C-alpha cells in the first residue's frame, strides 16, 4: 500500500515535471540555435536593424528584424483597436443585459468562433477581405488592415469570455448600492461595474495581444509579408511581415547564419509574448485588493 502510493505520487510528479521540462528544452534549443547569430550581429543590431537581407547575392547578408517587430505590434494593436470595444460591449451585454436565452445562444456562438481553425480564417481573409480592401480602400489588399481584422476576429472570443467573467465577478453589493442611490443601470455599469472589473479586463486585453503577436497562419495569408516598414509609417494599407511569418516563410530553405537568424527571431518573439503574459498575470493578481 505504502509503496504503491509512493509510486503513484512519483508518476504524478513526473507528469507535472514534463510540462516544465518541455518549456525549458524549447528555450534551451531556441537559445542554442539562435544565440550564435545574435552574438555575431549584436542584439541591438539584430533587433533595431532596418534591413533583412539574409541571402545577399553581392556583399554581406544583413539580419535586421526591426520592421518585423514593428509589424507584429502593428497588427496586434490594430486588432485590439477593433476587438476591444466590440468585445467589451458584447461582454457587458452578456453579463448585465442579456436574458438567459440570449446569453446561452451568444455563448455557444462564441465557443464556435474559438473552434474555427486559424487557417480557415486566413483563407476567408484571403479570398474575401483582401480583394474587398483592394477594391474599396486601394493598395494591394494584403495589408496591416487585413491582418488586424483577421486577428480581431480571433481575439474577440477571448476578450469576451474573460471580460464577461470579470464583470460577473463584481460583487452584487456594488451594483445594489449604486442602484439604491438612484443611479441608472447604464450609469452603474459605467461608473461602478466596469471600474471594478478593470483588472480582469486589462488582463484579457493583454492576453489577447500576446496571442495576436504569436498568431501565424491566418496573418501570414493576408498581411503581404514584405520585410520593410510601411511607408509612410501610418499607412495601414501597406503590407508588412510580422516575426511569425518571417520564420514560417524562410525556414524551409534557410541554412547557416540565416537559419540561426530565424531562431533568433523566435527568441525575440518568445520574450515579447512571455513579458505580455507576465503583465497579464500581474493585472489579474492585483484584482485581489481592488483599491485606488
Amino acid at each position, binding site marked *: 500500500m505504502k509503496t504503491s502510493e509512493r509510486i503513484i505520487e512519483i508518476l504524478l510528479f513526473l507528469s507535472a515535471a514534463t510540462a516544465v521540462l518541455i518549456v525549458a528544452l524549447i528555450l534551451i534549443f531556441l537559445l542554442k540555435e539562435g544565440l550564435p547569430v545574435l552574438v555575431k550581429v549584436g542584439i541591438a543590431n539584430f533587433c533595431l536593424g532596418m534591413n533583412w537581407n539574409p541571402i545577399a547575392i553581392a556583399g554581406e547578408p544583413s539580419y535586421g528584424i526591426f520592421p518585423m517587430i514593428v509589424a507584429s505590434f502593428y497588427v496586434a494593436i490594430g486588432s485590439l483597436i477593433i476587438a476591444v470595444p466590440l468585445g467589451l460591449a458584447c461582454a457587458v451585454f452578456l453579463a448585465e443585459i442579456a436574458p438567459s436565452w440570449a446569453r446561452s445562444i451568444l455563448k455557444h456562438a462564441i465557443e464556435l468562433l474559438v473552434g474555427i481553425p486559424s487557417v480557415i480564417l486566413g483563407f476567408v481573409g484571403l479570398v474575401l477581405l483582401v480583394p474587398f480592401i483592394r477594391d474599396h480602400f486601394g493598395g494591394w489588399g494584403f495589408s496591416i488592415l487585413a491582418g488586424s481584422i483577421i486577428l480581431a476576429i480571433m481575439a474577440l472570443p477571448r476578450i469576451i469570455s474573460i471580460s464577461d467573467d470579470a464583470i460577473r465577478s463584481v*460583487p452584487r*453589493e*456594488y*451594483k*445594489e*448600492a*449604486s*442602484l*439604491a*442611490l*438612484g*443611479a*441608472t443601470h447604464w*450609469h452603474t455599469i459605467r*461608473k*461602478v461595474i466596469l*471600474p*471594478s472589473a478593470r483588472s480582469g479586463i486589462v488582463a484579457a486585453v493583454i492576453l489577447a495581444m500576446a496571442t495576436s503577436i504569436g498568431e501565424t497562419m491566418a496573418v501570414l495569408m493576408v498581411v503581404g509579408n514584405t520585410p520593410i516598414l510601411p511607408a509612410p509609417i501610418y499607412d495601414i494599407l501597406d503590407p508588412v511581415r510580422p516575426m511569425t511569418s518571417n520564420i514560417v516563410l524562410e525556414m524551409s530553405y534557410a541554412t547557416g547564419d540565416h537559419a540561426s537568424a530565424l531562431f533568433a527571431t523566435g527568441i525575440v518573439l518568445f520574450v515579447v509574448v512571455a513579458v505580455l503574459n507576465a503583465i497579464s498575470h500581474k493585472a489579474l493578481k492585483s484584482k485581489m*485588493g*481592488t*483599491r*485606488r
Partner: protein
Amino acid sequence: MSEIEIESRNLDLWYGSAQALKNISMAMPEKKVTAIIGPSGCGKSTFIRCINRMNDLVKDCRITGELLFEGTDIYGNSVDAVELRKKIGMVFQKPNPFPMSIYDNVAYGPRVHGLRNKEELDRIVEGSLKASALWNEVGDILDRSAVDLSGGQQQRLCIARTLAVKPKVILFDEPCSALDPISTAKIEDLINTLKHEYTIVIVTHNMQQAARVSDHTAFFLLGELVEFGKTKQIFELPEKKSTEDYITGRFG
C-alpha cells in the same frame, strides 16, 4: 400621530410560485422609526426591498396589492424606479462602500444626479459625513480608499452616501448584523438623530435593537404580518401569542 409616509395595502409577493409575503397591510409614519422584526426567512427583508423596488432585480418576482409612497403607488406605471430611489435610500446588511476614495463614495449619488460644481460637492460630502458622525474620523483622509476603513466606519460611510442624495426615507436592512457592539451602538445613536429629519424603516433580528431605536414595530412570521403597533405596546403587551413567544425568546 404624524402623517403617513409609506403604506402597504394587501401586499402579496411571489418568487416564482413561492409566496414570500401574504397580505401585508401597515402604515409607516413620517419622521418616525418603524422596526420590522421576525425570524430568518419571515419576509422582512423582502418587504423592505419592495419599498425602493430593489426586487425589480429579482427574476420571477411578482407583486400584487398596493404600496403607497406619499400617496402614489410605488409600483404604478408612471413611477420611475430610478427617481423613486433618489427619495428612498437604502443601507444594506453588509457594508458595501464602492472601491473608491471616501470622497468619491459620498459624492457618487450627487454626481449621478448631475452635480458637477466642486464647492457644492465638497459641502455635501462634509455635511453628509458630519451627519453620519464620521467626519471627525475621516475628515482629513478623504482621498483614502473606503475599503481601508473598519466595518463600522464603512457602514457609517454608506449612511453618509445615502444622506448625500437627500432622500426622504432611509431603509436599513439589518445594518448592524455584521458589526461589533460598539459600532452597533454608534449606528443606533445615529438612527436616533436621523429620525428627526427622515422617515426610517429598519429590519433587524435583534429585538433589543428594535426596542431601543423604534417608535413602531411590526412582527413578521412566515410572510405574514402578525402584529403591528407602538413599540412599547408590542414589547410590553403583545396581543398575539406568537409575538410574545418571539420577543421573550421562546423561538426564532
